[in-house]
């Protein structure tokens, strides 16, 4: 299974990872090789098998509907790369910056 250059670029766009020319070339080879290893699974018939996410049944945990003190704003913002007043600073998402 050989991945094309375009496929590598498409995956990188989906997961928002910038790649250099060299990265793209290296990943093209490595990912193709790794996917080749996965083909071993095609030899197993799984038509009658259900999927397992976790071995235990995951159920939503409900807590009582009571108030609790939240983290202080300053603490929450203490790791922010950029802030303005009490907000995280982000780029414009819509329209011109």
């Amino acid at each position, binding site marked *: 299974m050989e991945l094309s250059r375009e496929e590598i670029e498409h995956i990188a766009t989906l*997961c928002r990872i910038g*790649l250099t020319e060299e*990265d793209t070339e290296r990943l093209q080879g490595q990912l193709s090789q790794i996917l080749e*290893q*996965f083909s071993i699974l095609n030899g197993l018939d799984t038509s009658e098998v259900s999927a397992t996410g976790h071995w235990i049944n995951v159920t939503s945990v409900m807590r009582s509907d009571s108030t609790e003190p939240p983290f202080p704003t300053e603490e929450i913002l203490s*790791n922010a790369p950029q802030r303005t007043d009490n907000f995280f600073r982000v780029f414009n998402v819509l329209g011109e*910056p």
Partner: protein
Amino acid sequence: MEVTELTIHEVARLLNQKKTSATEITEATLARIREVEPKVQAFVTVTEGHARQAALKADSLLQKELGLPLTGIPVQIKDLICTKGIPTTCASRMLKDFIPIYNATVMERLNEVTPVLVGKGNMDEFAMGSSTENSAFHPTKNPWNLDFVPGGSSGGGAASVAAGECFFALGSDTGGSIRQPAALCGITGFKPTYGLVSRYGLIAFASSLDQIGPLTKDVEDSAIVLNAIAGYDPRDSTSIPGKRPDYTKALQNDVRGLRLGLPREYFGDGVHQDVRNAVMSAASILEAHGAIIEECSLPLTPYALAVYYILAPSECSANLARYDGVKYGFSYPGASSIWEALEKTRQYGFGPEVKRRIMLGTYSLCSGYYDAYYLKALKVRTMIRNELQRAFDHFDALITPTSPTIAFPIGERVTDPIAMYQSDICTIPANIAGIPGISIPCGFSNGMPIGMQIMGKHLSEEMILRIAYSYQQTTDWHSQRPNL
């Protein structure tokens, strides 16, 4: 023998008899770190000031006879477990300056029994790797031979325990990251049943596989630490409800009548001859003490690696989507648009292995490939889990090598991801099935330690501890210390 070579239970006895103090133990440990850390490089951060304060607090408890099982015992914590006010980097440029504002549940539980945190452990970046060479800061060296890797991803934890830089460490195990470095460094590493220990505050890699556990010098220490960290946590939706037993009660030297399986797929061609022989003779020792040893077959074992390298990257690609340079972590300066900011932040914040896995996972989850890769892997996961469950209808535990080889030279596999991934073939099935597994030392080859793995069914921690403890009562591999 230096005090730093002792086990938790040996030091705890000295502390309780007031033959030493937590401050003395802590100073001896910090001195040991200053002495050997330039060679071993097992830490990302050493927390000297914090450790001295914690030691004083421990001493005041010990003076009042209020000492608990881990009071005053120096510990290293893998740098992906959140420690309030202390940097938690995941050994990544992405989180180089991240300081958590809360403690992981395991830290809260551990702090209740007042150990002394001496620092944060080096690791493969975001726990992705089997050699600790993927740390963005520095590779950790194997204390038995500094030219060799300590294993990974909890390589800092395993190396620091083996080198006497702490008395125990907490690591995390997604595909073998506690057991494999424990094997390669000649110590005891225990991955409990998925859900036994809370994952709240453990920075996520692959949420359906990650589990926290202890790295210790022997099995008795492992039970002591497990007592401290295991417990139900409503903040982790996969936490198993109910009380946990006292694991130290399982430390009985008695394997009479236990049925132990040797699955032949774990002893195949890829397994080093010395490793195979050492594990086989360990099984004979258990047999001599009354265990019933039988060969068995788990034909789905060869499929586990592919299942893991589809599931773990898929989950990681989703978990690591949060690193966008907005709320915390590295943020690329000088971008001119949101897209450029995101792409450059992740390009320069993540190292090559992390990017490789995010890419691989993104591909496996892509529309058009989802059924062929991710869903297929989840189905084969069911088959592997069922196969193991059937084995445990017949056997009390399975005995296998932990790693197919002894430690390998630094640099040997780092450019070959497929060769590196092979390091995990014996440990991955336990994560896929959610079952517990321990690695204990069982020999040496060319001066490097060999590990034996004991796996059991879900929540069979006591059975595993009993077998491992029995083995250590009649062998002394776990008492060997490297000469640094």
